[in-house]
């Protein structure tokens, strides 16, 4: 295998991993803090992509249309995330795992069908602005220039989340809540408000990820079904509630997929599930998680 092919696959794995990181970071944050596994995360991600399409469509005449549409879509999803948290998720904090999973499972069905009702069944395609329309060349290898933007967004979200968790007061509270919510509550911090904030932040990132995904190819119904399982794999490999773990997990899944597709295209996804299973068996709390969660 020659060097240029390795570079090409590495870059493709990097962009894939960044996409997964954007989706999985919110999922991991929500689970880490709220102990709720949000099955509907990828459905909300898909909704973000459709919102991006609509905003872009409305501003089609302007060159900056897409660049405004992406943050707008993320904000729209944050608003929807807030409604979902306050109306539904809040009621099942103390319920059993099966009921929480079932609730978010029901949400997927509802959201997917609402998307179908709103945007119809045909695929949606965003015409990219000229800046990211043509490929760039690394060592003579063509690379989709839009993915440079994807990688930048991924890095920005990673750094932003890290700064937020390490440097701000709110971030400290969130990290403390991952460790022990009873203690945080005992210190007089309103846990429900923290939960709502975390959920909205998680869905905001999911919406952003969807919006960023939108111009990559066409937006199709049902794109979310495969994505959610891969996002679970990322979070399991990295460890629930660990930002670093989610980042490393995304890179592992992205690169494993990119390289295994060269040798064994049918088995690329299967390999990811096998890695996930191995991590779960050896270290159920993931590579970077902490085993002492309650």
């Amino acid at each position, binding site marked *: 295998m020659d060097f240029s092919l390795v570079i090409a696959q590495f870059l493709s794995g990097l962009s894939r991993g960044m996409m997964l990181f954007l989706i999985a970071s919110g999922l991991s944050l929500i689970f880490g803090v709220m102990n709720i*596994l949000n099955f509907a995360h990828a459905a909300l991600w898909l909704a973000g992509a459709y919102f991006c399409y609509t905003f872009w469509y409305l501003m089609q005449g302007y060159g900056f249309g897409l660049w405004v549409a992406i943050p707008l879509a993320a904000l729209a999803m944050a608003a929807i995330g807030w409604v979902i948290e306050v109306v539904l998720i809040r*009621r099942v904090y103390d*319920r059993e795992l*099966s009921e929480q999973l079932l609730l978010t499972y029901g949400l997927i*069905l*509802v959201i997917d069908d609402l998307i179908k009702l709103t945007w119809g069944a045909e695929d949606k395609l965003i015409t990219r602005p000229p800046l990211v329309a043509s490929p760039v060349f690394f060592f003579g290898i063509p690379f989709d220039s839009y993915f440079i933007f994807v990688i930048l967004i991924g890095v920005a979200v990673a750094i932003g989340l890290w700064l937020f968790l390490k440097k701000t007061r709110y971030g400290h509270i969130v990290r403390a809540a991952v460790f022990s919510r009873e203690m945080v509550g005992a210190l007089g911090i309103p846990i429900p408000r923290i939960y709502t904030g975390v959920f909205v932040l998680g869905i905001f990132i999911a919406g952003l990820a969807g919006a960023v995904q939108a111009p990559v190819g066409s937006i199709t119904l049902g794109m979310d*079904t495969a994505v959610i399982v891969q996002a679970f*794999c990322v979070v399991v490999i990295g460890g629930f509630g660990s930002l670093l773990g989610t980042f490393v997990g995304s890179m592992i899944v992205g690169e494993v997929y990119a390289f295994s597709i060269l040798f064994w295209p049918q088995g690329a996804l299967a390999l990811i*599930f096998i890695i996930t299973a191995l991590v779960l068996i050896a270290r159920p709390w993931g590579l970077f998680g902490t085993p002492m969660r309650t």
Partner: protein
Amino acid sequence: MKRYWWIGLIFAGALILPLTVEEFWVHVAIEILILGLFAVSFNMIFGYMGQLSFGHAAFYGVGAYATGMLMVKTPIPLPICLAASMIAAGVCAVIIGYFCVRLTGIYFAILTLAFGQLIYYIIFQWYSFTGGDNGLQGIVPPKMLFGATAYYYFTLFIVGAALIVIWYIIRSPFGYTMRAIRDNADRTRFIGINVRRYMLINFVVAAMFAGLAGGLLGPFNRSISPDLCNWHQSGVPVFMTVIGGALGFLGPMIGSVVYTFLMAFVTGFTEYWPLVIGSVIILVVLFVPGGILGLVEERVKIFRSKDMADGVDESTHKESA
């Protein structure tokens, strides 16, 4: 035994059902029975072992493919195909379960989901063997069972027999051991029971019955597709069990009746069935936590069977992981 007169009543009703309704409803009834067995087998893991499996559809799908492929490619008679379905699902469950029983709670759910997806992708990608996403067509039942009514009686017989076997398993010392493990795995270990081995056996038996349910599906639909084992399908028995009530033996069956009837009714006039069932799922989770059987039990004493709710303490039933 006096308490169980209503089971006889249900059985008698099931026997005369095809004579009284249109063929469409006979089809619905067959589906209720198949999905009901699927859900009852799921509840062996969920209700009686206390672990939530989100990959149970994998065994359902493996069973469906075992019978489907044997019937399309060989002249083996249907009952033997069904036995092969149980064995195929059981073998898969031994391998998967060996790892899964090491985990509990949310990790158990995710590991079963990951393994389920692994099986889904194997079936989906292995074109030369399974037909991939084209599925499998032309699974024709034997001439004797060609009509809906005949196949209904056949399904009723198989599902009824399977339910009786599961009932005896649940009421056996083995079944009580499972409930002990569910309520307190540590204490069960202290009295010298090999918890993991018991959990594995239970997991495999549950998977075998899911495989049997899957096997019945192919000859009924005349075709199967890999979507049967996708994780979306694993949510169906979870929903049926929660809506029917996990603590009653027939809870999942009641859930199957509700789900399948609703599906037959709703898909008649709208393509937005997922929207309807999704909303129902959300409403049930929010407002009917004990399921229908729980609601009935609160009001009607006659349904309160002592050994169903035996030793169930809400606080210990909760996941500790």
